[in-house]
């Protein structure tokens, strides 16, 4: 702000306040609660790239690095062939000529200590099957929409669950095959079985020992359920993706993204859906307005929310139906009770304790900024480290690990402005800070909001709406967060994420021409701030100046200053600038 230069000398204390509150402090901050990076004190080691660039893939006899000739079977042994593990193995081999092996358990749709499958959670029990079911379940809404556009049906469309599940599973098998090919083509040795770490350079699979210069753990996470009576009657998300029949009436416990996505899926397929959340609102950690908005929209589509209810027991009655008892009520008649109450890192029985790999209280492997564990030769990426548990983040971590360990180029994954989506119906896309986080981080924040009925809804007559929010740091004018709930939100936010990542300002958004008619064009046509939050600086600056001036002047002067303050506020002027002009 130009105000710095024009400040009168006597305002130096104010200047300090101003500088402190207005100076851009870092860029985007990490999402609170998402990251549990280890402290530097716990892991003081700097990364030392352990291998030199080694391009010849055929020189199988000589492992990477200068000192380790023939000492190890592999340069890298990866445990777990999910998103992170496959990415790292493939890149280490193809980009740096490392000799790589990867182990993974046999395929099953439901994960256990003996079963997993190539592709990991994302492909087999997460993103992919979930999205396929979201696609399948969304049609009922589209059938409804189509009526307003002139379409009629002789008979009501009916859904056959087994067709969907069979086609989904065929697709998953195809993807497993693709992953196998990816690894084969990258000349990564694939070993089927459960890997266990024996020492810092040795992994045992099915009783056979393999030595490696580096070991990478990418074993992911698994759903966790609370220990309450009757919990064995409930299902988790693994099972929900592969049920033999469609639930007639389902209780979903949890308010996170998994709970909301499944609520949308089953509601779309015409199950009766009840969601039980412990808090007042769904989606803790998301923008408050988005949290309210998505719950409202889902309720309008027929989902019943039970807020501030903790599950206490699941019981089965004689007719085979389930009841859920909470701290407030007991609701019965459920064909299924699903718990979407968090996920836990798969760190049990990996031999981690024995080799001294440090874990946190949730069982997540503690790593430094380069994904190195407390054991120098052992690394970990993805959900098992419980940083930001998203496939693209695991890919980023895997890529950064390879550059660090094999590319002689220490690379930290960059956790700023990671976009993410919730495939609820309607879906959410978001990148950067929530309004609440931005206010905490920057104090002065401009919030731009568009809450509108999309063109499609005006024709369909359905109560669908779209919410968009841009959060701007008022001092730098940088867009620090963008949020959307409505059709195509995840697709729309991706491009916006590039802009946010690039540190673009609100003016940059405004200078962009809209694509008409789309929903997305709202993001570049929000001209007037819905609210300007001046939490710290304005009040502090104003108050500081007023206080000072109240002591200087009395009577008329006091009123003049007060009056000026109001004008400044109305005209959005820098108070200091006006002061300078008047005095």
């Amino acid at each position, binding site marked *: 702000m130009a105000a710095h230069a024009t400040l009168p000398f006597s305002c130096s204390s104010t200047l300090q306040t101003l500088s402190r509150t207005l100076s851009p402090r870092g860029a985007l901050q990490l999402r609170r609660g998402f990251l549990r990076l280890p402290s530097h004190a716990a892991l003081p080691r700097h990364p030392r790239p352990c291998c030199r660039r080694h391009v010849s893939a055929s020189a199988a006899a000589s492992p990477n690095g200068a000192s380790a000739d023939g000492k190890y079977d592999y340069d890298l042994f990866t445990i777990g062939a999910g998103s992170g593990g496959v990415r790292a193995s493939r890149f280490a081999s193809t980009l740096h000529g490392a000799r790589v092996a990867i182990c993974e358990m046999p395929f099953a749709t439901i994960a256990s200590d003996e079963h997993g499958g190539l592709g990991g959670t994302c492909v087999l029990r997460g993103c992919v099957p979930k999205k396929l079911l979201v*696609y399948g379940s969304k049609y009922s809404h589209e059938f409804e929409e189509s009526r307003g556009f002139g379409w009629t049906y002789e008979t009501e469309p009916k859904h056959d669950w087994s067709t969907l599940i069979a086609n989904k599973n065929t697709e998953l098998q195809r993807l497993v095959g693709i992953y196998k090919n990816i690894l084969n083509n990258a000349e990564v040795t694939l070993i089927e079985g459960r890997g266990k770490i024996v020492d810092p350079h040795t992994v045992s699979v099915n009783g056979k020992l393999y030595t490696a210069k580096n070991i990478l753990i990418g074993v992911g996470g698994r759903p966790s359920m609370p220990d309450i009576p009757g919990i064995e009657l409930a299902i988790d998300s693994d099972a929900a993706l592969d049920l033999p029949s469609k639930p007639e009436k389902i209780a979903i416990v949890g308010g996170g993204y998994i709970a909301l996505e499944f609520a949308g899926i089953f509601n779309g397929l015409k199950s009766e859906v009840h969601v039980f959340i412990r808090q007042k609102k769904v989606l803790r950690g998301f923008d408050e307005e988005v949290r309210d908005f998505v719950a409202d929209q889902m309720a309008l589509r027929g989902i019943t929310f039970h807020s501030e209810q903790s599950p206490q027991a699941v019981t089965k009655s004689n007719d085979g139906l389930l009841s859920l008892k909470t701290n407030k009520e007991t609701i019965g008649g459920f064909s299924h009770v699903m718990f979407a109450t968090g996920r836990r890192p798969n760190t049990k029985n990996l031999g981690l304790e024995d080799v001294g790999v440090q874990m946190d209280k949730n069982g997540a492997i503690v790593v430094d900024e380069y994904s190195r564990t407390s054991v120098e030769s052992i690394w970990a990426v993805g959900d098992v480290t419980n940083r930001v548990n*998203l496939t693209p983040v695991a890919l980023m971590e895997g890529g950064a690990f390879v550059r660090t360990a094999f590319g002689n180029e220490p690379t930290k994954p960059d956790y700023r402005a990671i976009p993410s989506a919730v495939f609820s119906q309607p879906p959410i896309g978001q990148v950067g800070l929530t309004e609440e986080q931005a206010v905490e981080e920057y104090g002065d924040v401009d919030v731009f909001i568009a809450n509108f009925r999309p063109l499609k809804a005006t024709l369909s007559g359905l109560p669908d709406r779209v919410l968009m929010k841009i959060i701007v740091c008022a001092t730098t004018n940088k867009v620090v967060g963008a949020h959307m709930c409505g059709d195509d939100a995840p697709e729309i936010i991706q491009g916006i994420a590039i802009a946010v990542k690039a540190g673009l300002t609100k003016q940059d958004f405004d200078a*962009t*021409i809209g694509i008409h008619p789309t929903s997305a064009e709202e993001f570049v046509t929000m001209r007037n701030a819905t609210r300007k939050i001046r939490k710290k600086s304005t009040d502090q600056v104003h108050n500081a100046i007023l206080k000072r001036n109240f002591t200087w002047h009395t009577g008329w002067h006091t009123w003049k200053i007060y009056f000026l303050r109001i004008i400044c506020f109305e005209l959005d002027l820098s108070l200091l600038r006006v002061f300078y002009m008047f005095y």
Partner: protein
Amino acid sequence: MARKMLVDGEAPVADGGQYDYDLFVIGAGSGGVRGSRTAASFGAKVAICELPFHPISSDWQGGHGGTCVIRGCVPKKILVYGASFRGEFEDSKNFGWEINGDINFNWKTLLEHKTKEIVRLNGVYQRIITNAGVTMIEGAGSLVDAHTVEVSQPNGSKQRYTAKHILIATGSRAQRVNIPGKELAITSDEALSLEELPKRAVILGGGYIAVEFASIWRGMGAEVDLFYRKELPLRGFDDEMRAVVAGNLEGRGIKLHPGTNLTELSKTADGIKVVTDKGEELIADVVLFATGRKPNSERLNLQAAGVEVDQIGAIKVDDYSRTSAPSVWAVGDVTNRINLTPVALMEATCFSKTVFGGQQVKPDYRDVPCAVFSIPPLSVVGLSEQQAREEAKGDILVFTSSFNPMKNSISKRQEKTVMKLVVDAETDRVLGASMCGPDAAEIMQGIAVALKCGATKATFDSTVGIHPSAAEEFVTMRTVTRRVGPVSKPKTSL
């Protein structure tokens, strides 16, 4: 901004009595409404004239909202939505949906709902104008001199108004080609309001309007034959993407007739007989001419004020939208610069800022994104590969991605989504992006923000993907597809 007011101390208000208005706007479409509203917000006294509302435009009919709202973007998009459902029904089968019995499409229902929505928007526009304190006048405006507008009514009554500045924003109108039987054909105006849905439609033209109507009618169940002069539709777009669109249209059942013109239309008992320059004959219920649009400048009596037009009738303007008469300005399609609603909005805002806001602002035509709402849609921003090579000094890196969208893995629809980034090899700047596939228009908007601000390929790569989405491909294109050098001459074979 407020700061400016303090610095210059000038508050633009109605000029003291010399003129009736500070600004008189002819035409209440996107550009005119934006221009009048923003001028009023700077304190100007503004009037705007517009013809009475009718879905089909003529010399005496128009309506508040203009082409975009009444005969363009909005009704077209509504029909595209309606037509897209057919593909959804097909796709839903493999997702387990059983639709026994017939699915019927009732064109009249859609038409009725569409008209209702457009009438609503027409009202919204009138309210916007009124709320901005702008005087609304109904009738056909024309120039008397550089400061006088005459507004005439169909009954012959006329009224004159003087103004310090005049803004012309009368837009454009669909044009017909001159062949025997041309009166049997319709334009996009009528196509948006047909009484009956055609069973057999013939479309002449390769531009975005032709392609969009082909998709609309096909989606609603008609047999569609699309005739165009070039080898590929959508001249001016990236050649590779043009081929993708052509493939998709064919894949959805539209018959393409590249390099073919229509020579004659005649009426028969069975329908309209269409003869092509290749000697083919076919019968159609409807023949649509989507053969370009012409600026609405003829009835404005422009020469009275010395306002010049080019050979197609577009009003000539300078960088600030000022015509050859200093007090007369023009924005939007009537100037035939980039004929898009958001561009008319930009031009109008810049005009108001320049004339009434005390800031000289030129519209910025770089990196204007746009979309073709074919099914599936095409959307682009920045340069095509061909344009990039023509403008480049050094090499161009082309990244392409052609993939089966996840939905198709179950639906088994054989239609690839194609994305493309054109990057300057030396500066790493992303010069252009294109996409053809579901949601392309929605996806491209954010990409356009990044492009507008000179984002590099490295910035794209450093952005984390949203998984699973189609858009994430744009940030995960790691390997360059080809490296090409600059060319001096554009290829013309297409």
